[in-house]
């Protein structure tokens, strides 16, 4: 195993990330490509309107015409799941991007400069972690009011905490490494060392975490939709669909199950991707 690894590492192909990526990474990437394609081309993939109600096709079970069946308003569940993909991916992406950037910057500054900045930041992190994630998000959404934008703001205000923590811890490790010391003896400024040397190395765990965090954030978005605090009906957001389908579990199990499976698929996608990425970056760091 060891000798095989060293042998393959010396082959030119293995030096690039393409050669080193694991099967789970490729599977995850392929599934993500499917999700993105669905999000972009939902209109082309179905003839049904996801919003318009049709009282002639209420609660039809899955069939050739309606592969995922229809809901209590006669809307095609397959169409709604397809259209929902864009909404949920958007929530996952935006509500991840902001807290990621915010957390990474705060963590890096706190870790590198230390002292008062660090104490203040870590104290506020402690306070934030004292509350359950969803409780804080719900409190903020309740204060700001529902809707997509407010939901993203609320998630961002809470979700940066683990990123700040991870990056700070890594920066502390990296900062004490000799190569960072060496860079300073060579006359590089502190700012440049953080941005170009410490951060690129310290960000790895945060990136890996982010990939698996996507699904948590999508589920949070869905939970808020479910609680009536997120995206409003009749939007085909998956969480909202599950909430609406809940009362028809016995005479229309497909209404809640199909968007649930879509959530599951997305979850598996990002788990595989995160796993593969972790492997890839670990090898690189050695």
């Amino acid at each position, binding site marked *: 195993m060891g000798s095989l690894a060293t042998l393959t590492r010396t082959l030119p192909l293995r030096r690039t990330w393409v050669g080193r990526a694991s099967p789970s990474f490729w599977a995850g990437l392929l599934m993500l490509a499917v999700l993105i394609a669905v999000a972009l081309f939902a209109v082309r993939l179905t003839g049904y309107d996801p919003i318009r109600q049709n009282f002639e096709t209420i609660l039809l079970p899955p069939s050739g015409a309606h592969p995922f069946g229809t809901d209590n308003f006669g809307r095609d569940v397959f169409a709604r799941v397809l259209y929902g993909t864009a909404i949920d991916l958007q929530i996952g992406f935006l509500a991840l991007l902001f807290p990621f950037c915010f957390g990474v910057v705060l963590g890096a500054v706190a870790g590198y400069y*230390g*002292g008062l900045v660090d104490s203040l930041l870590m104290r506020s992190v402690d306070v934030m972690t004292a509350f359950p994630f969803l409780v804080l998000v719900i409190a903020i959404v309740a204060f700001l009011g529902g809707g997509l934008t407010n939901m993203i703001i609320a998630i961002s205000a809470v979700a940066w905490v683990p990123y700040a923590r991870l990056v700070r811890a890594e920066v502390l490790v990296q900062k*004490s*490494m*000799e*190569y960072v*010391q*060496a*860079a*300073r*003896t*060579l*006359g*590089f*400024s502190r700012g440049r060392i953080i941005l170009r*040397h410490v951060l*690129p*190395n310290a960000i790895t765990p945060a990136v890996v975490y982010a990939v698996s965090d996507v699904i948590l954030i999508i589920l949070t978005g869905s939970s808020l939709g479910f609680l009536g605090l997120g995206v409003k009906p009749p939007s085909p957001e998956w969480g909202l669909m599950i909430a609406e389908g809940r009362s028809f579990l016995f005479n229309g199990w497909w209404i809640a199950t199909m968007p649930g499976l879509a959530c599951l698929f997305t979850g598996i996608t990002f788990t595989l991707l995160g796993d593969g990425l972790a492997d890839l970056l670990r090898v*690189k*760091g*050695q």
Partner: protein
Amino acid sequence: MTTTNTRTPVLTVEGLQVAIPTPRGTVKAVRDLSFAIYPGETFALVGESGSGKSMTCRAILRLIHQPGRITGGKVLFHDQDLAQLSERALQQVRGGGISMIFQNPMTALHPVLTIERQLVETLSLAMTKPEARARALQLLKQVGIPDPEQKLKEYPHQLSGGQRQRVMIAIAIARGPQLLLADEPTTALDVTIQAEILRLLAELQRANHMALLLVSHDLGVVSQVADRVGVMYAGQIMETADTRTLLGRPAHPYTIGLIRSMPRLEEEERQPLEPIPGSPPDLATLPPGCPFAPRCAWATDICKEEVPVVELAEGHWSRCHRAEEIYRELGGGRVE
């Protein structure tokens, strides 16, 4: 070494003090340290681990980790006091005027950048990118890396320990510093490679007329290349002299202890190594008097009260009450 004294030093350290506040008290890692290094000269600091050698190097470039700080003294680079200089001006001195290499070549290079990137980035602080690329190759040749074109494209983990240290040296001398601080540059390497690296440093020093501060816990390593040696103990220089004098006519019991604990390969009847009994003092709770007294066979009552500085000859002095006595007794003979 009379010729060197007529020139002006590259670096003069005067009464340097470094303190680290800890819960147990203030650790005085460097205490009243003074020495000078002249152009083209190799000055060595030798002492057991924990004696403050690395701290001294970092203090020179003002790169001491918090919460440690310089609490007194001057670090004159020519006539600029680095202890007072602005951070901006210091960045010009670091790498440009004074460079440093470290003990562990495994961790002192950036793990995910190619050798070329690391060299070029350092060189770009002083020249344009294309110039830097050409110079990078030239530097690798100069430090004796085989197949330098190929090695430029590789990552640190693809090189051996010795090659990595050579690359470190190339990066450190890239901008032509007048002084190189080498903190245990060979400690992490195999014995055969140690000798090669020392030879390389000596060569580069001659070619570039660069002064070298060589730090080591190993008097044997130091004696091969240093012009003068300062023996450090508990943050102080206990004795300093030119290398030949220091080894042949030491005037401090600690120096004698170091010499006796040095393996001597060339000798017919090999003597058993004699480690110095006891251990270094706690730098947070130093009593007055000589810090070596508790481990010293020559110690008398006065040693527990104060420490003199005794000058034995030009450029040879010792912090010991009985320096003259020891110097006279061992005069001319080898330390046995």
